C-alpha cells in the first residue's frame, strides 16, 4: 500500500508540474498506475467490484484535480471504472450460466463442485439482480437500493464456507480479469497510431496537397503510412506559434522524403485555396464531436470551411472524453507564459503600473488550446475507424459507464 501511495504521489506531482508531454504518454502512465493500484488493492469478499471502484475513484479524483485540462487522465480513469463494472457483469453472467447448468446436473457430483454454484445461487441471483437487470421503474420510483437484497438471502453456516471459497475465487478472478483488460487498454493506447495509420491509404490519393498545423505523432505516422504505399503528395505545414512544433514536423517529413513547405500561421488563409485536405491531430475529442486542439486550429478549420476543404481530425480512442464542453475556451484552456510572445527585458518599460487606477496598461494573452465546434469537422479517424462528428457520442457508450461521468467518491454508506 505505501508503495502505491508513493507512486500515486509521484504521478500527481508530475501532472501538477505539467512534466508529461502529450495525451498518449499521460494516458499510458495513468493506466499503468491504476493497474498497480488495482493489483495491490485488497478486496473484501462481498461486493469486490464496489471496493475496486471506490479505490479507483478515490485516486482518480486526485489525478483529475491535478491537471483538469489534460482530459486523457479523466478518460482513462473512467475507462478503468467501466472495465471493472463490465468484468463484474460478465462474471455474474457466467456464474448464472454455470448455475443453470448445475441445476440440470444437480443430482450428480453434488457436494464438492456444487459447493460453488448451488450455495452461491442465492447470492449470485441477488448480485445478478443488481448488475444484470436495468433499474425498473418501480425501483426508481421507490428509490430502494437493490443490492440491499443480497445479505438477506445468505443462509446457513455450511453455505458460508462454500460461499467464502467461491467469493475468494471470484474476487481473484475479478481482479485478474480487470488487470487483463487494463493491459489490453494499455496495449490499445500504445498501438493507436498504427491502427489509425492503416486507414491512411483510403483517404490520400496521388498528387494530393495536405495542410497541417503544429506537430502530432498521429499525423506523422498517418502520412508515413501513405508514403509507404507509394502515394505521392505534398504537405504544407503551418508553424504553430508560439511553440513552433511545425518546424519539428517539417524536419521529420523531409527526412522521410516528403515534399514539405513550411508556412507561417498567418499565411493559412492565403494557401488553403490550393489545398485538398486538412489533416490534424487533437488534444481531446468531446462528447458533442467538438475538438480541443492546439491553439490556431479554429483558424484553420474556419478557413477550410470557407474553401470547402475537408477537415479531418485524427484521434486515438483514449482522447474521447464523455463530457460536454461548456465554455471550453475558458474552462478547458490554459494560459501559458507571456514570455513566449514578448521578451520581458525588451518590454520592461511598458510594464510600469503607473496609470492612475494602478491597473497595468499591458496585458499579454497566450492560450494553449483552441476549441473547434463539431460543425467544422468533416471526419474523425480513430483506431475504431472513421466517423462523423455526430456519431462520437455513441462511442462513449462503448467505453464509459453513465455512473462514472462525475468521478467523485459518494459519501454514502457502502455495502
Amino acid at each position, binding site marked *: 500500500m505505501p508503495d502505491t501511495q508513493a507512486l500515486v504521489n509521484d504521478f500527481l506531482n508530475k501532472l501538477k508540474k505539467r512534466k508529461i508531454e502529450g495525451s498518449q504518454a499521460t494516458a499510458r502512465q495513468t493506466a499503468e498506475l491504476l493497474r498497480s493500484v488495482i493489483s495491490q488493492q485488497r478486496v473484501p469478499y462481498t461486493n469486490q467490484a464496489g471496493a475496486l471502484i471506490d479505490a479507483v475513484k478515490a485516486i482518480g479524483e486526485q489525478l483529475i484535480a491535478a491537471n483538469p485540462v489534460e482530459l486523457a487522465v479523466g478518460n482513462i480513469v473512467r475507462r478503468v471504472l467501466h472495465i471493472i463494472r463490465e468484468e463484474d457483469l460478465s462474471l455474474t453472467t457466467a456464474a448464472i450460466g454455470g448455475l443453470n447448468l448445475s441445476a440440470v446436473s444437480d443430482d450428480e457430483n453434488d457436494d464438492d463442485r456444487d459447493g460453488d454454484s448451488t450455495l452461491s445461487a442465492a447470492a449470485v441471483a441477488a448480485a445478478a439482480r443488481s448488475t444484470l437487470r436495468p433499474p425498473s421503474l418501480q425501483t426508481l420510483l421507490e428509490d430502494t437500493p437493490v443490492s440491499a437484497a443480497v445479505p438477506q438471502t445468505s443462509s446457513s453456516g455450511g453455505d458460508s464456507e462454500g460461499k467464502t471459497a467461491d467469493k475468494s475465487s471470484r474476487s481473484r478472478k475479478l481482479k485478474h480479469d480487470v488487470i487483463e483488460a487494463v493491459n489490453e487498454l494499455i496495449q490499445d493506447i500504445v498501438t493507436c497510431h498504427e491502427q489509425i495509420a492503416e486507414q491512411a491509404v483510403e483517404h490520400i490519393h496521388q498528387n494530393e496537397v495536405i495542410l497541417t498545423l503544429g506537430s502530432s505523432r498521429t499525423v506523422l505516422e498517418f502520412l508515413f503510412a501513405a508514403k509507404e504505399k507509394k502515394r505521392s503528395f505534398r504537405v504544407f505545414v503551418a508553424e504553430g506559434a508560439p511553440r513552433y512544433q511545425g518546424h519539428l514536423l517539417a524536419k521529420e517529413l523531409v527526412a522521410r522524403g516528403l515534399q514539405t513547405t513550411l508556412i507561417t500561421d498567418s*499565411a493559412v488563409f492565403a494557401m488553403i485555396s490550393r489545398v485538398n485536405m486538412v489533416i490534424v491531430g487533437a488534444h481531446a475529442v468531446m462528447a458533442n464531436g467538438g475538438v480541443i486542439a492546439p491553439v490556431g486550429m479554429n483558424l484553420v478549420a474556419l478557413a477550410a470551411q470557407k474553401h470547402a476543404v475537408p477537415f479531418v481530425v485524427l484521434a486515438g480512442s483514449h482522447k474521447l472524453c464523455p463530457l460536454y464542453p461548456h465554455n471550453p475556451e475558458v474552462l478547458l484552456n490554459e494560459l501559458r507564459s507571456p514570455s513566449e510572445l514578448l521578451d520581458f527585458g525588451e518590454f520592461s518599460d511598458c510594464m510600469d503600473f503607473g496609470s492612475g487606477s494602478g491597473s497595468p496598461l499591458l496585458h499579454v494573452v497566450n492560450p494553449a488550446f483552441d476549441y473547434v465546434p463539431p460543425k467544422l469537422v468533416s471526419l474523425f479517424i480513430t483506431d475504431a475507424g472513421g466517423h462523423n462528428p455526430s456519431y462520437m457520442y455513441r462511442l462513449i457508450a462503448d467505453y464509459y459507464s453513465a455512473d462514472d461521468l462525475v468521478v467523485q467518491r459518494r459519501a454514502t454508506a457502502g455495502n
Partner: protein
Amino acid sequence: MQYDDKSRVQKLKKRSVVKPTEARNRVELFRHLPQYEHGTQLPVLQSKFFQLDTLHPAVYKVGLQYLSGDICGGNARCIAMLQAFQEAIRDYSTPPAKTLSRDLTAKISSYVSFLIDCRPLSVSMGNAIRFLKSQIAKIPISLSESEAKATLHSDIERFINEKIILADRVIVKHAVTKIRDGDVLLTYGSSSAVEMILQHAHELGKQFRVVIVDSRPKHEGKLLLRRLVRKGLSCTYTHINAISYIMHEVTRVFLGASSVLSNGTVYSRVGTACVAMVAYGFHIPVLVCCEAYKFHERVQLDSICSNELGDPDSISKVPGREDINHLDGWDKSENLQLLNLIYDATPSDYVSLIITDYGMIPPTSVPVIVREYGRGQLWI
C-alpha cells in the same frame, strides 16, 4: 510578373544594377514571382555607392533603406520615394538635343527599375509613379527648364500633402465617430492610419481598450504596442493563433491596407484575411482604413497570382528562441521549402466598411472611386 519566363528574366538581369542571386529552394506555386537570396545584396550595393553615376544618390539611399527593411509600410515607402525623386529632379539638367519630358521620364523609369530590384513596388508607389509620369508628360514645351522643375516639385509636394497627409486626417476624423466608450478594438500588425485613429480617439478622451494581434516573422505589432502603451492606452497583445480566444471580447476590428482592388478585395499584410474571417464568423464589424490613392483597377481573387515573397531565412529562425533550431541547414535538403508571403487578399465579404478620404464606403463602391476620381480629376 513573369519570372517563370526565362528570356524576360535574362533581359532584366542584364539591365539591373543590383544583380541578385536566385534563391535555391523555390516553392512551385510561386515560380512566377521573384525570389532572391537575401543578405547578399546589401553589402554589395553599399560598396558600389561611389561607382554608380547613372543613379542619383538620394534614390540609391532609399533603395538601400527598402532592401534592409528600414522603411516599411505603404505610406512611408511612397513618401520616401517621392522625396527622393524631388531631389533627383532638382539636380536634373536636360542634356542637349533632348526634350525634358522624354528624357526625364526615361530617367525616372531607370530609377524605378532600380527600386524594384531592391524590393518590388507596392501599389501606393505604383500609383504615385504613374501620377508623376503623367505630370511630366503634361508639361508644356514652352516652359523653361527651371520653371518645369519647379512645377514638378510643387506637384509632388501637393500629392504628398493632399493624398497622404490630409487624407489621413480626414480618415481619422471619420473613423473616430465609429469608436464608442467601452469599445474593445482589435487591430492587426502595424498600420499608420489605424495608429493615428487610435491615438486621436484617446486624445479625445474616449474610453476603450486595444487588442493588438501580431504574427511572424516581422512582429510589427510589437512596435505599435510600444508606441500605444507610451501614449497611455491599455493594450492586450496576442498572436494570430489566439484570435479565436480573444475575439469573444472584441467589439470592432480596424485594419489597414496596402491597397484595395476593384473587386473589393483588400490586399494587405499576410494574416489580415485570417483576422477578417474570424471577425466575420463572430459577427464583428471589420473596418478597413485606406487612403484613396491606394485604390487600383486591378482585380484579384486569391493571394497566389500576385504577391511578394520575403526572406525564407526569417522563418527558419526564431529570434530570441535559440532552442527552435530544427531547420538549420534547410536549404541543403531539396524536399523542404520555406514560404514567406508578405501580402494576402481578403475577400470583400469579410469587410463591412472602408474608410477613405472620400468618405466611408462599402467595398462595392471601390471601382466607382477608381473610375470617377482616378485618372482624370486627380485633384478633386
